[in-house]
């Protein structure tokens, strides 16, 4: 809980500093935009945190986003699929990808890093193949479907909450329940800490791990759909590039340990928010955008090392006591 409080203070500080230096930060349009981006990136942050808690990693998310996005546009515009069928097919593909990752990792005992790195390469190429390596979009069609990403709930004062942010909140609540209130979540946390002890307690560890990869790929697929609807275009060679790293960064900033067995959904939510607000601040404060990655990198390092320093300090006090 201390950790969550720490990153929450970090988030608030960034917001306050940015507002002081440029009051436009609180402008309704800017708030709407920032929330929309938090929602879109938050979806994959939640997905990857399940994998990270199992002590794995998923590097393929960005490519899954490009592939499902490309597939959605192609199915709707070139193959005349109905909207439900197209959505169903995209989610089905992500499910299959997650199952394949999970099986390779649990049954063939391949390292998650390798499996999902290969996925990153393969799905990227497939996305380019599916679109003939052309940038594609919906044009002026499917306005109704695009409301999923572009719609919003109006609030007084000109403010509004974008739909992707609401989707993100709903998924976060489901994820919190899954992680903290169900057998699955308990076993996942236990397994991330000590897989051997979980096996010796009669728990099917392989199935737990497999499901975590399925969750992650499904979230990637959903994000692919939302990003595509939002941007109305897919550039198969670049859409979603590096997004997995944003997701991993948000999860780690939010307190997921890459050693596994540790993580909270609220933390991941705050972690995602920090990254998006930071990007927004860099634009608002007219900081040259080539410094963006450096600033994000430094903030993540500060967030993560503060935690380690605090932990060391606490445990050294414990020893003395």
């Amino acid at each position, binding site marked *: 809980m201390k950790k969550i409080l720490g990153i929450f203070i970090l988030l608030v500080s960034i917001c306050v500093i940015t507002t002081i230096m440029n009051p436009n930060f609180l402008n309704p349009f800017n708030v709407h935009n920032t929330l929309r981006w938090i929602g879109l990136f938050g979806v994959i942050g939640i997905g990857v945190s399940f994998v990270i808690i199992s002590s794995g990693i998923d590097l393929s998310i960005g490519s899954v986003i490009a592939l499902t996005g490309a597939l959605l546009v192609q199915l709707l515009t070139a193959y005349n699929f109905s909207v439900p069928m197209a959505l169903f097919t995209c989610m089905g593909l992500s499910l299959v990808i997650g199952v394949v990752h999970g099986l390779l990792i649990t049954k063939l005992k391949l390292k998650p890093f390798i499996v999902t790195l290969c996925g990153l390469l393969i799905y990227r190429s497939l996305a380019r193949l599916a679109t003939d390596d052309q940038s594609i979009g919906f044009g002026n069609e499917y306005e109704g479907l695009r409301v999923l990403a572009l719609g919003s709930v109006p609030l007084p004062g000109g403010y509004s909450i974008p739909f992707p942010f609401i989707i993100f909140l709903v998924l976060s609540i489901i994820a919190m329940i899954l992680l903290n*209130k*169900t*057998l*699955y*979540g*308990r076993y996942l*946390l*236990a397994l991330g*800490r*000590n897989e*051997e*002890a*979980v*096996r*010796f*307690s*009669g*728990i*099917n560890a392989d199935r737990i791990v497999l499901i975590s990869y399925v969750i992650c790929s499904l979230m990637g697929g959903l994000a692919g759909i939302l990003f595509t609807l939002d941007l109305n275009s897919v550039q198969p060679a670049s859409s979603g590039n590096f997004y997995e790293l944003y997701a991993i960064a948000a999860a780690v900033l939010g307190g997921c340990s890459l050693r596994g*067995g*540790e993580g909270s959904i609220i933390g991941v939510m705050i972690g995602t928010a920090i990254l998006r607000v930071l990007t927004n601040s860099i634009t608002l404060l007219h900081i040259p955008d080539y410094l963006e990655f450096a600033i994000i990198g430094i903030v993540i390092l500060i967030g993560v090392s503060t935690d380690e320093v605090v932990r060391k300090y606490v445990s050294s006090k414990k020893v003395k006591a």
Partner: protein
Amino acid sequence: MSESSVLLRATGLTKQFPGTLALDNVSMELHQQEILAVMGENGAGKSTFMKILAGIYQADSGTIELEGQGITLNSIRNAQDHGIALIHQELNLADNLDVTANLFLGQEDHAWGWINQSSLYLKAIDLLKRLNIDIDPTTRVSDLSIGQQQLIEIAKAIAIDARILIMDEPTSSLTQHETEHLFTVINDLRERGMSIIYISHRLNEVVEIADRVVVLKDGQNAGDLPKDEINHDNMIRLMVGREMDDARHRSPLPPGEVILEINDLVTPAHPNHANSFKVCAGEVVGMAGLVGAGRTEVLESIFGVTPALSGSISIIDYDGPLHNANQAIDAGIGLVPEDRKLQGIILEMSIRDNLSLASMRDHQKNGFLNFPYEIENSAEQIKAMSIATPDDTKEVQLLSGGNQQKVVIGKWLATHPKLLLLDEPTRGIDVGAKGEIYTLIDKLAKQGVAILFVSSDMEEVLSLSDRVIVMHEGQITGKLTKSELSEEAVMRLATNATATV
């Protein structure tokens, strides 16, 4: 032998570890060109003793003399400089490198960091030839058999000009043929002037190769045997040593119906041995044997974490399959594993969560955790096991070893097992907690639970068991009833000694 032939003399070595006195005033002499066997039961202090001679541990008190000169051995390097080399039971070779690289690891001829490969190969060829070892020095170590790797370890010791070679259970993973070859090499080394300290608990091998035997018992000297007195009876007598104080305080009830029946069980670790036995309700059955006898493997196959290759396991009132731990729990089996911290508990999780880890599946509500059950179960087990903690939301790693073990046992009691398997239930636990665990096992047996436990602690086996199954290298070599039970009888079966007393 004359005094002048004494090469190495250790006098009054004492080594205290937290909680145990590993060596208590142990003395030993090693003569020139002698093969000295050091024997003893598990935990007799053999390896501590050897590690002191090899410079890995330092004795708290006592002296070591080499050719009459007092020496201090404070590092492995230091011991090697005095010509003492230890070959560990688990071989320490870099198996991704070739034989030559391993032979001279850390001793390479080099100029400014550039290794002089050709000179090393020539030296390797010469060394292997001197030792009559027929191995190409360019072979990758991973392509060698275990026996050949053992020979490379010996050659490596010769390469650093060792005069005293200490070998810890060198034959434990060798075939009969490889063992014979090893003995030829060892005899050959002695002819060339080396002295060898040979640690083993295989009586036959010691009879064959040793010039003299030193026996340790509970960290003390139990006696020496000259060449002509080395035989099974004498060795067992010295290893068993003191009279056992009769600690058989349990008063077993007559056993009930058969809970577990095993027929021709074959475990992956010992594919050539099939074993059969039964355990009844209310019975406490001990499994004795030396380390590596295959006892843990039997427990793990019954529990399904390491499925058996063949054979049948049947549990009373259970007809389902038994291929994994989940099904084993369905059948009413619990396993308190050998490695508590790795397999038994999740150190960073709370006591409460650990206590419900195995039983929550039976109390879940459509996949959701049952928190009231969890709290109730935790309180119940903490009381039943008298786990010393004021707060069950504390992490298990904050508990003492004994209390951690109680958490593991409590986790299984929550599943109400018909058969409880315990692997080294009191290893690394202080005396007080040991007593509590014994009392608990006794209580469970009285409630009709069938208990099967593995232990390398002889007193524990003798005092706790109603019946003992003894294993030797994957095979059950005997079953002893309470009245037949004695330390000698167990050791005889555990070492598979054939001679009669």
